[in-house]
Structures are given as structure tokens and as C-alpha cells.
């Protein structure tokens, strides 16, 4: 019996139950019980249709739970609906469940937690550990999220942009060092891509894969960050890169570009360069022009300034940074980018001072250590 199969099926089954009108929290409990049952029974007899088997068992558990609760409250059993007849092969149940978990009424932190719980099948303890909060806090966050979405209909399509944002948040948490979350985000993006023909979904999946492909080269033995231009490219996962490029090419061919597709295109150009010096900067700059036109995120414009520095020289890059003044005041990345461009322009003292200020402003330990070392290297002329 495959663990992966159960993990893939669990959210689909939950989606069926909720679509049929089950209360989210009770439906989730019922699915968990059905999974336990599957672990017990399947090793002996694997059902022909595992999904239908799970739906039947979970639905029965849900009705049992409602009946006993109802008996406790001396309610009329007649009000309990039997499962609605009809096919369970609603391909979009997973998608609808994802929309529910990423409901706009939820804060990003709640949506992330609920998505990992309901879609990813992570335990509350696992999610709590990943986000460094006590288990009781995470349990409370999840149950508040469930209360918030209780009774919201699962019939109208949600906002796919919110789902993508939530998945990318999960990925970035993992990419910062907690590996399982990055893999989980990719798994969920694959689920979503299977059921949605929105090119941005494919773009997001490609983007995640292109970054994930570099994970082994991103840290050295001392767990220090290795910047892109110093990474050992032979450690990059060529299989993941090839898959991502296939997905991205098909998505771009649809002619409906969006910010994730464009970011993936940029990542693909980096991944395509055999060495850092062979990077196709002019083409990357062209994609950044598209990205800045598509998004209001000033960090995209800041990254573009770095590329301007590569194409037209560090002084031109610095002028592009100056043009951003105001929107990113006090942001450590503004200091870090300016420091990088000043270093390339040969203004070592100013660069070192700005690297240090960036180190003081970041809240990431890895980034702080990296920036502090950069400054130290400049001062000692290494």
C-alpha cells in the first residue's frame, strides 16, 4: 500500500464530503478515521477503486459522528441527510478544497496552516515545528481557521491568485531551510496543476522546480549561504530543470503571461547558464521589464536594478536603484543591492558600510551572517 497514494487521495475525499454539504471540521475527522481504516484493511485487500472506497468509508464515519452527536443533543435523526447519490469523479473537488483552505477571509498564516493540514496531510505537530510555534498555538490557529470558513459554500470557484500566493509562501518557508515544506509545496502545486489549466499555475510549479533544483548548491558545509554566481552548478538537479522548462514552455505558449511565468523564465535562464559568466543578462533584463510592468512589487524593480548593473555597468544599476527611492526605505535588500553595485563599481568602503547596515536590518540569520562576511571580505581586501 502506497503512503503517497493515501496522501494524494485524502484531500480529494475531503473535497467530496465538503461538497456534499459536510461541515469542514467533522469531514476532516471522518477522512482521518477512514485513513486509519485503510491502513488496517488495505494490506490484506486493496480495493479496486481506492478513492471510492475511502469516500464510502469516510462518508459513513461522518454520518456515524453526526448521529452520535445528534443523539447526545437529542436531535431528530430525520434531519440527517444520507449521502447525495451520484458519481464521486468530480475532478475539481481537490481544487475546490484548495480554494476553501485559501479563502480570502483567512489571514495568510491561517491559510498556510489549514492548507498544510487539509491538503498536505501534515499533523498539527509537524506544522507547528515547521513554523517554530508551540503545538497548542498551531492547533488554535487551525481551529480558528476552520471556524472562519465554516458554512462557506464550496460551490463558487475561488481566487486562484490567493491559492498561488499561499503555496508560494509555503515554498519559501521551506526554501529558507526547512526542506520538507518546499517539497510539500511542490506536491501541492502539482495537484493544482493537474486540475487547473490556468497558465500561472504551471508557471508557479516551474518556478518552484527551478529554485528547488539548486537546493544542494545553496548552502556550504558550514550552513552558510552560497550566492548564485558562486554555486557549484554540477550540484543542480538537471532532471528538475528539464521538467520545469517543459512545463514553462507549454505555459508560455498559451500567450497569457503572468508574474509567476515570467519569474520562472528568469530562473530558467539562470539555470540554463553553464557558468555564471555565461548568463544571458540581456534576455533576463527583458523578462524583468515584463515583470516590473506586471507587478507593483518594488522588490521586482530592485532585482531588475541588479540586472541593469550586469548589462550596462554598476553605475547604471545604481541609478536604477536611486529611481526606487522611497518605496523600499529601510529595507535591508535595498542596502544589500546598493552595496553589491558599489562593490562592483570599486567603491569598497561605501559597499562595506552598506553590507553592514543590511546585516543589521535583516531578520534572517543566514542572510545576516552572509552580509557580515561580505563586509569583512571587502575590508580585508580578500
Amino acid at each position: 500500500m502506497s503512503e503517497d497514494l493515501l496522501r494524494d487521495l485524502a484531500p480529494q475525499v475531503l473535497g467530496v464530503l465538503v461538497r456534499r454539504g459536510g461541515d469542514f471540521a467533522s469531514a476532516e475527522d471522518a477522512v482521518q478515521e477512514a485513513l486509519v481504516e485503510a491502513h488496517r484493511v488495505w494490506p490484506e485487500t486493496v480495493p479496486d477503486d481506492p478513492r471510492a472506497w475511502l469516500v464510502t468509508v469516510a462518508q459513513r464515519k461522518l454520518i456515524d459522528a453526526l448521529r452520535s452527536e445528534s443523539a447526545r443533543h437529542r436531535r431528530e435523526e430525520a434531519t440527517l441527510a444520507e449521502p447525495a447519490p451520484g458519481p464521486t469523479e468530480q475532478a475539481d473537488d481537490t481544487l475546490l478544497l484548495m480554494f476553501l483552505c485559501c479563502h480570502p477571509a483567512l489571514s495568510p498564516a491561517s491559510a498556510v496552516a489549514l492548507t498544510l493540514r487539509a491538503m498536505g496531510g501534515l499533523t498539527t505537530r509537524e506544522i507547528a515545528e515547521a513554523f517554530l510555534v508551540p503545538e497548542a498555538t498551531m492547533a488554535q490557529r487551525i481551529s480558528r481557521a476552520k471556524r472562519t470558513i465554516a458554512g462557506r459554500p464550496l460551490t463558487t470557484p475561488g481566487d486562484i491568485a490567493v491559492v498561488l500566493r499561499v503555496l508560494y509562501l509555503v515554498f519559501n518557508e521551506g526554501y529558507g531551510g526547512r526542506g520538507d515544506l518546499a517539497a510539500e509545496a511542490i506536491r501541492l502545486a502539482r495537484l493544482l496543476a493537474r486540475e487547473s489549466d490556468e497558465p500561472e499555475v504551471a508557471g508557479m510549479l516551474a518556478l518552484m522546480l527551478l529554485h528547488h533544483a539548486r537546493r544542494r548548491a545553496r548552502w556550504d558545509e558550514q550552513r552558510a549561504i552560497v550566492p548564485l554566481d558562486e554555486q557549484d552548478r554540477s550540484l543542480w538537479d538537471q532532471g528538475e530543470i528539464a521538467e520545469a522548462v517543459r512545463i514553462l514552455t507549454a505555459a508560455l505558449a498559451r500567450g497569457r503571461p503572468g508574474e509567476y511565468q515570467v519569474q520562472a523564465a528568469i530562473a530558467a535562464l539562470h539555470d540554463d547558464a553553464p557558468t555564471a559568466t555565461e548568463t544571458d543578462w540581456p534576455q533576463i533584463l527583458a523578462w524583468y521589464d515584463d515583470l516590473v510592468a506586471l507587478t507593483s512589487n518594488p522588490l521586482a524593480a530592485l532585482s531588475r536594478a541588479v540586472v541593469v548593473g550586469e548589462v550596462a555597468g554598476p553605475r547604471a544599476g545604481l541609478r536604477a536603484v536611486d529611481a526606487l527611492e522611497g518605496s523600499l526605505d529601510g529595507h535591508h535588500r535595498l542596502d544589500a543591492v546598493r552595496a553589491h553595485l558599489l562593490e562592483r563599481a570599486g567603491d569598497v568602503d561605501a559597499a562595506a558600510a552598506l553590507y553592514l547596515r543590511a546585516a543589521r536590518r535583516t531578520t534572517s540569520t543566514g542572510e545576516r551572517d552572509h552580509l557580515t562576511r561580505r563586509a569583512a571580505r571587502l575590508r580585508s581586501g580578500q
Partner: protein
Amino acid sequence: MPKYLLLKHYSGGPEPLPSCVPMSEWTADEITAHIAFQHEVVRMLTESGELVDARGLSTEGAYVRFGGPGAAPVVTDGPFPETKELVAGWFLVDVDSKDRAHEIAAHASSAPGKDGEPIHEWIEVRPVMDDAPPVE
């Protein structure tokens, strides 16, 4: 087992340190050695079953206090001047005795700095209050 909060005072403390070259004047290798030492302390405390949590604190921040009824909170933004008290991070440990907490603090304070010499930073050791009274 009593719990202790170990506060790492990057600057400040009960009396000034004999020699304290700030990290901004160390070489990259000295910084790397210092960070490796910090990881090693966390690994050692995890292995001994004494670590509850350990975190670094960003240099920047703010002081905030209630400004009075109907008034805005009083906020003093960072960055705090280098000369002022600066807590760089903390360990929360669950140990057998105060002596053990002091031993851990002294070891953490021996982290290498400029020229690989111990930095001797002050580590404030504070018992964490317990909810329940001890068994008689």
C-alpha cells in the same frame, strides 16, 4: 528541572569588558569560526537534552510603551546606538542546577572573536519562574 534564560549581551553588562573588538572589524574567517561555535553550542545542548530554544535577535527594533488614555503609544525606533545595551540573542535551557546553567553560560561566552580570542561577552542568567510550587 529548573529553566534558565541565558541572555547574550553583545554590548553592555555590569561592567565594561577588557577588550571588545566589534564584529564589524573581524575577518570573514573569524566570523565563520564564531558562527560555527554558536552552532556547536546549540548542537551540544540538544544532544545533552537541555536545550529548549535558542534564537538570535535582530539589531534593529523599537522601544514601545503605553502613552496614556486616548494617546498614541510612545515609540522610539531603532537602531539603538552601539554604545547602548544590546541583547544579541538568547538560549532557554532546562538543566539540573544553577551551577549547570552558569557552566553553559561561561562556555557560550568563550565564543571565538578577533584573532580567535574568546569574546568574554556577558551572559545574563535568569531563572524562569515556575507555575507550580515545588513538592514539599
